[in-house]
């Protein structure tokens, strides 16, 4: 845990302040909303079964990317905030499960020399913190399963710019896989009431490929339309754990739509020094 916090802290420090370079570094930002299919299983909520609950999931995904000074500006920083909520039911239609998750990830990618014109290849690592719940409407003393994860991920991205007729398009694919981290989990059969009695040992577990496999496949296509850039996306998210006798999976396939933009942020002292480059409604 300490190593990951230190790692994240260090890269954050390195990533601050772009100095007084002539061309300001812009921030790439997009916000998308999405909807898709959800598939849940949690054997804390349905012990000794392998029943999947299926339904829909809605999400909001915000992304920011920016070049940073590291390695002579060959590194970019990516921040992702994802909020999702889903509703599912069992095959017989007699019970519902609701789930909600929120996560934030901070990643740094090294940008390789483009192998082809218009193609950018990036690889790096990210840290993600996430939390959420799965709630079953049918249950007695095991109604909800809480989730909290802290992960270190491997991350790779390919961005390809091309034209169809005269329309410039940008296609992106990103894959992210956690390789080590920590997660919270009660033990199989352990009621949350038990935690209220003071014994909270054994709740935090080291996670890696032996007990957790998660992955995100993220596709986007940017289409400029008039003065805006529309972003179409597809997010395939997998989360599978087998920890403390509890098997969980949260799977989703979501289609996303939103807007992407580039902007240059001025704040603090740079507001004054760059006063000739903007017309503010506030300052």
């Amino acid at each position: 845990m300490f190593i990951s916090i230190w790692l994240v802290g260090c890269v954050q420090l390195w990533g601050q302040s772009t100095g007084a370079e002539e061309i300001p570094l812009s921030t790439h930002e997009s916000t998308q909303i999405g909807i898709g299919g959800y598939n849940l299983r949690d054997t804390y909520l349905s012990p000794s079964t392998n029943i999947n609950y299926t339904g829909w999931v809605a999400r909001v995904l915000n992304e920011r990317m920016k070049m940073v000074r590291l390695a002579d500006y060959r590194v970019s920083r990516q921040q992702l905030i994802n909020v999702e909520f889903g509703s599912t039911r069992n095959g017989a239609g007699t019970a519902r499960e609701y789930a909600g998750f929120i996560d934030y990830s901070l990643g740094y990618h090294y940008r390789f020399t483009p192998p082809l014109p218009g193609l950018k290849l990036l690889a790096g690592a990210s840290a993600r913190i996430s939390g959420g719940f799965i709630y079953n409407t049918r249950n007695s003393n095991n109604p909800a399963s809480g989730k909290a994860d802290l992960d270190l991920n491997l991350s790779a991205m390919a961005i390809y710019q091309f034209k169809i007729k005269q329309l410039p398009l940008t296609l992106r694919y990103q894959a992210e896989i956690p390789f080590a981290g920590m997660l919270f989990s009660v033990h199989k059969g352990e009621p949350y009431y038990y935690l209220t009695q003071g014994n909270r040992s054994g709740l935090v577990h080291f996670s890696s490929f032996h007990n957790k496999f998660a992955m995100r496949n993220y596709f986007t296509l940017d289409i400029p339309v008039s003065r805006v850039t529309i972003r179409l996306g597809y997010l395939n998210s997998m989360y599978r754990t087998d920890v403390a006798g509890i098997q969980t999976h949260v799977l989703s396939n979501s289609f996303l739509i939103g807007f992407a933009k580039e902007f240059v942020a001025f704040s603090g002292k740079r507001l004054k020094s760059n006063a000739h480059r903007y017309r503010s409604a506030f300052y």
Partner: protein
Amino acid sequence: MKMKTMKMNRVGCFLLFLLCFSWVGCEKATEYNPSPRDNFEALWRIMDENYCFFAFKDVDWDEVHDRYSLLVKDTMNQYELFDVLGEMLAEVKDGHTNLISSFDMSRYWAWYEDYPPNFYEEIQKNYLGTDYHIAGGLEYKRLADDRIGYVYYESFSSGVGESNLDYMFLHFQDCEGLIIDVRNNGGGALTNADRIASRFLEERMLTGYIQYKNGNGHNDFSDPEPVYLSPSEYIRWLRPVVVLTNRHSYSATNDFVNTMRLLPHVTIMGDRTGGGSGLPFSSELPNGWSVRFSACPMLDVNKEHTEFGIDPDVPVSITEEDLLRGHDTILDTALEFLQAKTDSIRNEGE
């Protein structure tokens, strides 16, 4: 033209690259499965791996499987299957164990149905009248010329807030003793039981232990975790108390009695409680029926089970004679007991 073709090839290569790395989850929805055999096996397995009292109750669950397996036929309809599975669950003789479908709920209620009721609402009305107070789930009134406070709590599922309790104790501030009637209280939230019991504590104390099943074996349990209760920060009652119980005092009520009986100024009176010391969990069958079962044993301070109930300090039953007269023998005995006790305390003081 050649340039355009090259560009298109590059796009094609890129898309192929994406497809290679795309890893789409292939989990499907679990279809409704009405198969009697599959549902029988699923129920048996859920109980086998999660029910917590097989060893304590000396139930041979494998033998139960073999016996009931013969009764399960592929041609049976859902009602017939429900009856067979419900009977199989009743083998563990547990009021916390139910099979729940959209058309019925199987249950084992012999823990109180086979015993004298020892509580009658019609007779209770002779004492409460119609001018009693209601605060949350509490119904309360002063009895015996205002010397004794009486509160009836029908269900630990009914909310009781700290202010409800404060106002009740305020009403009883001049009373010398208190009767807490939890007869026919089938249980509910343990938090309500703890909230009320904490009003009678002088100091933090051990009230019992809790375990959970940490494996699939019948004897796979976690170490017993001590359960403590601290005194309330609100109004507390340290004068004599009698808790009235009957066989229908079950689950969270059993836990409440388990705590209250540890207190020196509290006397348990009436019939043995119904028990129900296993915290229930839920699961489900492939046909969508829900199953509830005892999963976590709650032990007393001696690490003994109270699944089959707690004996009162003073056993009392409603007599037939009193029943005909509209008298509640248990409540009458409690009133006499408290008045005698408070008289004795007063005499000692003088």
